[in-house]
């Protein structure tokens, strides 16, 4: 039987990927952030997940404003790192798991989550940076990814965004779908995005560590309180782009109510973003 063995969450900032790819992670600016990632990499290495489900948002690589899926899921055999304007990241291709993807699609739709299905998709920094953070970077550190992947996308670029409670329930539905998968498969769920940051407007550069700390605490102790925060409040407290934090709630929903935080790291800032990371196990 398949099972979700752990959840991990992290911010997904393009410049973190650029720092890894250009070999400057030990520079004074970046070193504290990357040092903070080391225990998380160890945690994931020991987990040895067969499949990693990555919850992220596309930032205009695959999705334009002509059609914006609220929730999407990849069903491809392979996913390549896409070109976001500065060329694709120099990292190995990601191997998919179409069999599990289609199982998830059937089980999510049966639970009334009407996913948009992608049989061809490239992935952007929202996906690739967290994968490098947990599984290996800089580019060249790994020859191939030690896990298959399934991308799940959440619309966080055009309002209305899905409600936080809906994101949490999607996580619960993913959990049920994985539990019903007959093949022995160790699944890691990865929530990405946030924490507080704003990129657009005169308010760009906004961050709010107090809010982020509260969010990190409640991820463990009271996730339902986080699901009650309206998206407008997320924008106020975490920034117009920081509303991405709703994607952490998908990962949280796939876990037991009682979880243990194995590791946490919080660093202000990676470029314009308050960078948070956490590793969780079921109790």
């Amino acid at each position, binding site marked *: 039987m398949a099972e979700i063995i752990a959840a991990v969450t992290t911010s997904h900032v393009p410049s973190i990927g650029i720092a890894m790819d250009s070999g400057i992670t030990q520079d004074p600016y970046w070193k504290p952030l990357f040092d903070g990632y080391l225990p998380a990499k160890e945690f994931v290495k020991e987990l040895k997940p067969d499949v990693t489900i990555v919850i992220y948002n596309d930032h205009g690589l695959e999705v334009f404003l002509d059609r914006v899926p609220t929730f999407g899921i990849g069903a491809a055999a392979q996913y390549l790192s896409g070109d976001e304007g500065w060329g694709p990241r120099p990292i190995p291709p990601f191997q998919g798991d179409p069999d599990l993807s289609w199982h998830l699609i059937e089980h999510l739709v049966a639970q009334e989550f009407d996913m948009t299905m992608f049989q061809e998709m490239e992935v952007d920094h929202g996906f690739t940076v967290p994968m490098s953070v947990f599984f290996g970077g800089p580019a060249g550190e790994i020859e191939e990814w030690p896990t298959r992947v399934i991308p799940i996308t959440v619309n966080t670029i055009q309002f209305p965004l899905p409600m936080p409670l809906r994101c949490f329930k999607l996580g619960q539905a993913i959990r049920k779908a994985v539990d019903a998968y007959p093949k022995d498969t160790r699944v890691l769920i990865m929530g990405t995005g946030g924490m507080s940051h704003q990129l657009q407007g005169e308010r760009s550069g906004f961050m709010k560590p107090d809010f982020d700390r509260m969010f990190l605490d409640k991820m463990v102790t009271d996730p339902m309180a986080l699901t009650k925060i309206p998206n407008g409040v997320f924008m106020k407290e975490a920034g117009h782009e920081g509303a991405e934090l709703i994607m952490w709630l998908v990962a949280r929903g796939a876990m037991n109510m009682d979880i243990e935080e194995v590791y946490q790291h919080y660093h202000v800032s990676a*470029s*314009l973003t308050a960078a948070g990371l956490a590793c969780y196990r079921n109790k």
Partner: protein
Amino acid sequence: MSSSDEEAAGEPTISERIEEDKRLARSLEGTYLFDGTRSQKNYPLNKMCMSLTKRDNRAAFAADEAAYCAQFGLSEESKQLVFDRDWIGMIRSGGNIYYVFKLASINHTSMQHVGAQQNSMTLEEFRAKLNAHTSK
């Protein structure tokens, strides 16, 4: 009209919830809620910017920015914002930061540069603003 069962006494209606969310988001100074209204405002600009994720398109843009922008139907004002790399102008006119940032990326202009310009700050001033959070 009978009130629906879902509307328990004292609970806000769905319309009230949506309006409250938008009112709050729109009240944030220096923030441009990217909702349906805004998404319709400068569709050609966002479309042009997204096209720059293709290498051949970047070359065509570099060869003749005006002609390239014209293909996407950008207004004269929007073309000027693009020529000037006026990031805050593009955001105000309906640009979405994720698409607009593709235009910045082709010249390796960092988000910090874009943020500084949106704040009418020098890069050093903007970095000081970012670093100010560290001490909190």
